[in-house]
């Protein structure tokens, strides 16, 4: 195949693959710290003096997942798309490593704030030099939510961090999906309904510091509305039969929307486990769905499609059911088992992807 690192007539050169690999590795290390900290919290792994099950990873597991892993991953995708700004994901990755490896949380916070500001700048550049659109504005507002969340983490504002990080992920995904759903003819009012949901999410973040009860209520109402909107209108629900990875992506997305709806229902019922249905059920379904089609862009790998890639999604789903039951019944052993199931799903997915990539290398030996 043709290298993606050549200079095209109307584009600056693509970012160098070795540098992308270093930043991607930082994202994975942040995920390691986040998952290790989570498993130690749930009692699935013993705590250690340091490392991914050490006190720093345990204390800041959520921050590592949101600002560390997703902050790095999503900014990396944007940097690759725009052929610039690799420092943005690099700072997010370094921030997480400063935190869980060195315990330097003020440094981590400062790097995360700088990275989020940089991500906002990348969206601004895209709107200015490429094309401004509603979906781009939605994604940019997600970066703004990340900035607020990271600042909140620095200042010890837990509600702002929780809502801001969650909004970062939800708005990034919602913006991407709204962009593709332009292909579908929407009924009157559907476009306006999406904007209302967007406003609800943004307002919930804005209210987090001053009126947290109202902010959380608004958040779950917005999640319920967003889930219904996506389940009703998203083009993914029409693409299950699409060829290759596109069908896999569509199925993962659709499953994720169901988890978002269930999470919203539990959230409205005041159940704390609702958050993990959003973060793991909804967001990780997006990760499982998009990973195979992102690999060619990020690494030049062309994984060969396999239906096995849906199996980890089922493992994740089963473990989430255990998580819900364990939380509702306050069964610590069940929650530890659920945490192990989450981690197994990640490892299983990684193994399936490695095999698919290796098969791709065999079938396309000239591929990079």
């Amino acid at each position, binding site marked *: 195949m043709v290298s993606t690192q050549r200079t095209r007539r109307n584009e600056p050169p693509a970012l160098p693959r070795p540098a992308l690999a270093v930043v991607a590795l930082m994202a994975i290390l942040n995920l390691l710290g986040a998952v290790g900290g989570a498993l130690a919290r749930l009692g699935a792994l013993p705590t250690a003096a340091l490392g991914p099950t050490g006190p720093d990873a345990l204390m800041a597991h959520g921050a590592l997942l949101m600002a560390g892993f997703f902050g790095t991953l999503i900014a990396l995708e944007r940097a690759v798309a725009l052929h610039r700004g690799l420092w943005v994901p690099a700072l997010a990755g370094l921030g997480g490593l400063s935190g869980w490896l060195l315990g330097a949380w003020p440094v981590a916070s400062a790097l995360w704030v700088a990275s989020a500001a940089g991500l906002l700048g990348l969206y601004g550049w895209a709107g200015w030099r490429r094309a401004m659109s509603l979906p781009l504005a939605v994604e940019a507002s997600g970066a703004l939510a990340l900035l607020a969340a990271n600042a909140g983490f620095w200042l010890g504002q837990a509600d702002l961090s929780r809502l801001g990080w969650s909004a970062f992920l939800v708005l990034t995904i919602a913006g991407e999906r709204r962009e593709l759903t332009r*292909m579908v*003819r929407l009924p009157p009012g559907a476009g306006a309904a999406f904007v209302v949901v967007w406003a609800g999410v943004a307002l919930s973040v804005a209210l987090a510091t001053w009126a947290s009860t109202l902010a959380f209520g608004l958040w779950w109402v917005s999640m319920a509305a967003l889930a219904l909107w996506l389940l009703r209108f998203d083009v993914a629900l029409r693409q299950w039969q699409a060829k*290759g990875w596109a069908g896999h992506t569509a199925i993962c997305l659709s499953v994720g929307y169901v988890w978002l709806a269930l999470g919203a229902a539990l959230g409205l019922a005041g159940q704390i486990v609702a958050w993990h249905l959003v973060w793991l059920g909804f967001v990780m379904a997006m990760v499982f769905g998009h990973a195979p*089609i992102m690999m060619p862009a990020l690494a030049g790998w062309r994984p060969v499609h396999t239906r096995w890639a849906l199996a980890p999604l089922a493992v994740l789903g089963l473990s989430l059911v255990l998580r819900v039951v364990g939380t509702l019944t306050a069964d610590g052993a069940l929650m530890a088992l659920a945490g192990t199931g989450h981690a197994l799903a990640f490892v299983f997915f990684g193994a399936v992807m490695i095999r698919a990539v290796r098969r791709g290398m065999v079938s396309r030996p000239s591929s990079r």
Partner: protein
Amino acid sequence: MSSEPTPDDLPARALAALADVQDPEMGESLGDLGVIGGIELDGSVLRVTLIPTSATCPMADVMLDDAEAALQKICPPGIRAEAVMDWDTAWSPERMAPELRERFGW
């Protein structure tokens, strides 16, 4: 390499070659999605211009690579394939193929 290509029929052959190139996320061909803005033979360069549906999609380069690879297969010796994005033209659903438009409710 295809047999007996001539520069004059390259644009038409290019359009057929691009029918096999898909958008990674949608699984639909670039032609059906209406993202092919134009094909031209500019000296020794066979150039296809794609109209992006997203300003921040990291898969855009993959589509450009795939389009170039498909075009290079039909190019006679001395002709180089090139795919570029046209950031000045907005994509709209009217550009999609009739069958796809129908499937998506238009």
